[in-house]
């Protein structure tokens, strides 16, 4: 027999053993761990609608959002920029999964309150969970009409947000929505409205993403009792350090679920498009943060 081949055959087990170096041993030990998928969306909103993201524990998000008038209102109204409606809100992470928030919209003078809980977090690695699921519940008081009794100023929203981050760039979300108005704006409109939202984002660069969102409402569009259309929005997210700027075009004027899902009166085809933006600024109230800043490592 060829002696060289015999030697190779005999020492083959030794050679393979040597190749199994220290680093791959560490890798093998670590192979069962799984990691949460971070940053499915850059902020707690896709455009108008809630995203699966919640604020982390002891972190506060201060949000200012504006929507301007309709682009088709012409040069006299400076293409809508003469009118502005805004919402100011605070969102706080009680735990890494639970967030609570309050807001005030100028439109219909609404105070809104909500909670979001991250039920399931998408993970990669040893144990893979394909999607993130967050539940959202909110209520609001529309104080614009002083004649109404208190109960009739209230509305409620429930959402199950299901999202998946497909690789680094693409994230998609489904948002089944239940909306209940104690006293709909138009007499004769149904109190209950069901809707299905679909939204997503595509990262153009590390700090800029393209976002889009559409809410399909389970009702006849543009009727006498419900003169409304489905909400559709497109925008960009620009992230700079602690701020996220969301600039967008939408046919909805409102920034809370009751308004943009339930009461969108404009349509894209007629040019009833509003320019708008959200500015989000995050603050950390974690005491460890301050301590860490002082300490030397």
């Amino acid at each position, binding site marked *: 027999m060829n002696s060289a081949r015999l030697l190779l055959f005999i020492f083959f087990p*030794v050679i393979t053993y040597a190749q199994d170096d220290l680093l791959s041993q560490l890798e093998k030990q670590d192979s069962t761990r799984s990691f949460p998928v*971070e940053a499915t969306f850059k902020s707690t909103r896709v455009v108008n609608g809630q995203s699966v993201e919640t604020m982390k524990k002891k972190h506060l998000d201060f949000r200012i959002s504006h929507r301007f008038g309709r682009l088709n209102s012409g040069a006299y109204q400076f293409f809508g920029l003469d009118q502005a409606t805004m919402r100011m809100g605070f969102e706080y992470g009680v735990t890494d999964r639970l967030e609570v928030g309050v807001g005030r919209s100028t439109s219909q003078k609404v105070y809104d309150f909500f909670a979001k809980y991250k039920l399931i977090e998408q993970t990669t690695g040893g144990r893979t969970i394909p999607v993130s699921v967050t539940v959202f519940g909110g209520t609001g008081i529309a104080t614009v009409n002083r004649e109404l009794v208190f109960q009739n100023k209230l509305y409620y929203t429930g959402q199950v947000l299901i999202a998946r981050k497909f690789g680094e760039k693409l994230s998609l979300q489904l948002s089944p929505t239940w909306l209940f108005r104690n006293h709909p704006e138009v007499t004769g409109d149904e109190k209950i409205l069901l809707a299905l939202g679909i939204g997503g984002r595509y990262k153009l660069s590390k700090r800029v993403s393209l976002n889009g969102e559409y809410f399909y409402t389970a009702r006849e569009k543009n009727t006498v009792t419900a003169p409304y259309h489905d909400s559709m929005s497109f925008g960009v997210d620009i992230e700079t*350090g602690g701020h996220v700027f969301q600039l967008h075009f939408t046919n909805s004027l409102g920034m809370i679920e009751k308004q943009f899902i339930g009461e969108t009166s404009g349509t894209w085809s007629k040019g009833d498009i509003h320019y708008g933006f959200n500015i989000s600024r995050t603050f*950390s109230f974690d005491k*460890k943060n301050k301590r860490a800043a002082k300490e030397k490592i």
Partner: protein
Amino acid sequence: MKRYFFVVVILTIPAVLCQMGEAFGQSLMYSTSTGNTRFSSETPLENIKAENKKSQAILNTSTGELAIRMNMRDFVFPNKLMQEHFNENYMESEKYPTGTFSGKMDKVIDYSKDGEYETSATGKFTVHGVTKTRTISGKIKIEDGKISVNSDFQVPLADHKIDVPEIVFVKIAQKIDVKAQYVLVPVKK
């Protein structure tokens, strides 16, 4: 007959060698999976710090070979937004999940006796998918059957193609200070 016997002996050698290697190798291996790696970036505008308490290290005391491995996503920042940016924008942890070092001790040390040594290790240092051959100095302390490895070193961002955009350029140091503290215990089979 003699020839057949010879062949049988030859064939059993590798198996015995493997067994011996494993028996000796295991007793001479020291490792940890709860090593502490911290880093900081200090500029007049902002101090950024993070800590990884799940760093893995393994040392073969017979050959002086050393390997260190950590998951970038195990770095905990007091500010979660910074943590997200670290993984998303700077380290690209989805693409490059780990930081590793694989090398050899430059000094021959008697690990069976208690003592303290100033030494260094030379090998491949990989962060953000970019591998550099580096000699990293540190201290080795042998006490109570444990081996402590301590090292302070710097990682220049440019070496590992970690881009910092101009708007945050002044907030992030160009060289990151790293402090590694690992207590290695004998590997039990």
